[in-house]
């Protein structure tokens, strides 16, 4: 069984509710760490513009790059649901960061402190245990997100591997399917920023 995410990019308004709800649920303080971020993708030149938003998490890849990258085996993929979890006590911490280097989606997060240990999205394993979906899914005001067994998500929403601001890696096979926002005009002059901390939207 592999769990994953569905992201309806056409519904994401960049409201950041998922970011705040995630930090609240997982007790993550303000600062550089956020288990979910929202990308703002801005394209075009005034007045011909295209803007999309994209929530970004750990995609709990079928072949995660972070696991072989970790020198001490602190990262594991759970058999029962494919959720990728980290054992912080084993993690070597901010001096190492090889998992972050390996991950194209910047999922591993390190705080500002010198001895910061890796933390990241765990698809709210604690909430599934209570029969609840991840807090980002439940908090989204436009029902832009869903999570669950990936096969079921693909059956329900289709199997779309790419979206604005996201590149699918066939090697890693991230567990996500999209309803992407279409830039019909194919505008250039692209700028991508990520919130929290590095937001450049209007």
């Amino acid at each position, binding site marked *: 069984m592999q769990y994953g995410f569905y992201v309806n990019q056409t519904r994401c308004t960049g409201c950041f509710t998922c970011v705040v709800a995630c930090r609240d649920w997982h007790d993550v303080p303000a600062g550089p760490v956020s288990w979910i971020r929202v990308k703002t993708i801005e394209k075009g030149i*005034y007045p011909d513009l295209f*803007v999309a938003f994209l929530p970004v998490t750990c995609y709990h890849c079928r072949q995660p790059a972070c696991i072989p990258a970790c020198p001490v085996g602190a990262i594991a993929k759970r058999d029962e649901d494919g959720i990728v979890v980290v054992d912080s006590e084993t993690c070597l911490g901010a001096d190492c960061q090889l998992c972050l280097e390996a991950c194209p989606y910047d999922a591993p997060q390190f705080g500002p402190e010198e001895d910061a240990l890796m933390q990241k999205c765990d698809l709210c394993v604690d909430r599934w245990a209570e029969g609840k979906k991840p807090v980002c899914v439940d908090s989204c005001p436009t029902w832009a997100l869903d999570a669950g067994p990936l096969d079921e998500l693909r059956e329900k929403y289709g199997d779309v591997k790419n979206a604005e601001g996201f590149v699918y890696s066939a090697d890693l096979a991230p567990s996500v399917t999209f309803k992407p926002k279409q830039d019909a005009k194919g505008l250039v002059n692209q700028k991508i920023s990520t919130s929290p901390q590095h937001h450049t939207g209007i």
Partner: protein
Amino acid sequence: MADAHVVHHVQAFHRLLCQFGGYTAPWGFISNEGLAFAAGTTYGTPPVAYVHDASPRAEAYPKARLIVMWSWNPIDTQQGTRTPFSLIRAKEGGTRFISVEPRYTDSAAVLADQWIPIRPGTDVAALIAMAYVIIKENLHDQHFIDTYTSGFDQFRDYVFGLEDGVAKTPEWAADITGIAAATITDLAREYASTKPAILEAGYAAGRTAFGEQFHRAIAVLEAITGNARILSGKRSVSRALRRILQIPSPPNPVEMGAPPRWNALPYRSATVNSSARVNVNLFVDAILKGKAGGYPADYKFLWLSNNNYLNQLSDVNKAVEAFRKLEFVLVTEQFMTATARFADIVLPVCTFLERNDFRCPKAIEPLGESKSQLQICEALASKLGIPDYNDKSDEEWVEFMMTKLSEEVNKTSAAPAKESEIAELKLLPTPSGKVEIYSQLIAEMQHPLIPSIPKYIETWESLNDSLANKYPLQLITPHLKRRAHSQFDNLPWLRDLATQTVSINTLDAKLRGIRYGDMVRIFNDRGEVIIPARVTERIMPGVVALPQGAWYSPDENGIDQGGCANVLTKNVTSPAGAFPSHTALVQVKKAQN
């Protein structure tokens, strides 16, 4: 002033001050006085809260085939989440969206099929030119006009130039607004010929120099195309609630016998219409000028509660001067806001979680030395020698209001439901009983800058003003999604989400050698703010946007490092009393390190 609840509310202070002998109270909506005036004169009704999240309007979106979002950015500014979701469902169902405003907002990004950038303060010119196209091409709804409106002929004469020799053509409006004439023509045709169409007018364009003209022009465009409607829904109940759920108070002695203001609106109470009140946006002007300036009194004492008005109303430096002139400034607050920093005494008010109120029981005891609004007033009353300020506990007040509410709800639910929105238009509380394109009320006011039919009037501090040589950029002060006005600006989780910056178009930035993230000075004769620049394609050249609500933080030279937009706005109102927060000229320069 503002508090979401009813026992511990402004009414608690009001009762105390009325018992003490009276005080000058404010009048006017900071958010939408332009709309309040337009609704009161055009429909004879209070402004319908149709952009409220719980309004039936939200349900109507998916049924519309066209939604024009005119200076309306619901995705960032709407209270609640029902409206954005309803709009998204409309889009998914094929509704076409057009956004008209100077910024490519997040609402435009998510919803709009077309973005029409428009110069701030010129919205009425575009709307009048749309009316020209609609009438000229016979796209108006003559039956609706004949049945439900009055004054169409005078309006048509103005639009066609019979009144002043200037036909209000799309070409005429193009020069003013910066929108191509063909775009105005297309927009007019599309709006008039698409049914159902919703013209959703945000409050922003009403917060300009002649803001009431914007909402008047919107109302007229809706009327001549047969799109006018009054959405009542639960409005009558909720309005009644506001009256009932109040601690009763004796009349304010200073308002008794005072004549109504010249711009009194019939739907408002005599106290709100009283000339003993001061427009909320002019309270610092009243402090500085007093009776000599035509205000009701020479002021010595100011009491502000939970409103951060120093920060949130125009011309902060003038407000600072006014605060300093007073003998005593009292602020009741939960946080050390920009306003609280300029108080002589700050009384800490507990939050809604720390006292009992209507449908909001206490969760914890008040923290520190904080007290509830009612407790504060009780303590003051005993020192002021007012024996009968309060004879009820919080719980008894809640019970008192619950009883009155039950009575009202029983009365209201017994009344027959309105047949339809259109039926309501037949007997409006206007002098003619109809939608007044020509307003008799306005005609009686005889104000030279409030015409009886909606007209385009060029704003002060427009690009044609000689001041534009010195300050060539138009400043707008929109909302920022991570705050509610100035509320929550102190929360690290929310501050993290977006930086307080000034948005400037790439071309304007390049002319000034400004790159993304550079610290820049934004200034005019009223003050100066230093803040990072957000160089973007998403704003019209010639316009800069500094989101309102950041807390004023002056350095030793009085230069604001916090990014407070109202350091730069002008302390005046529109002729009818609107807060012109989007009418100001500024210059932007790269700050020297």
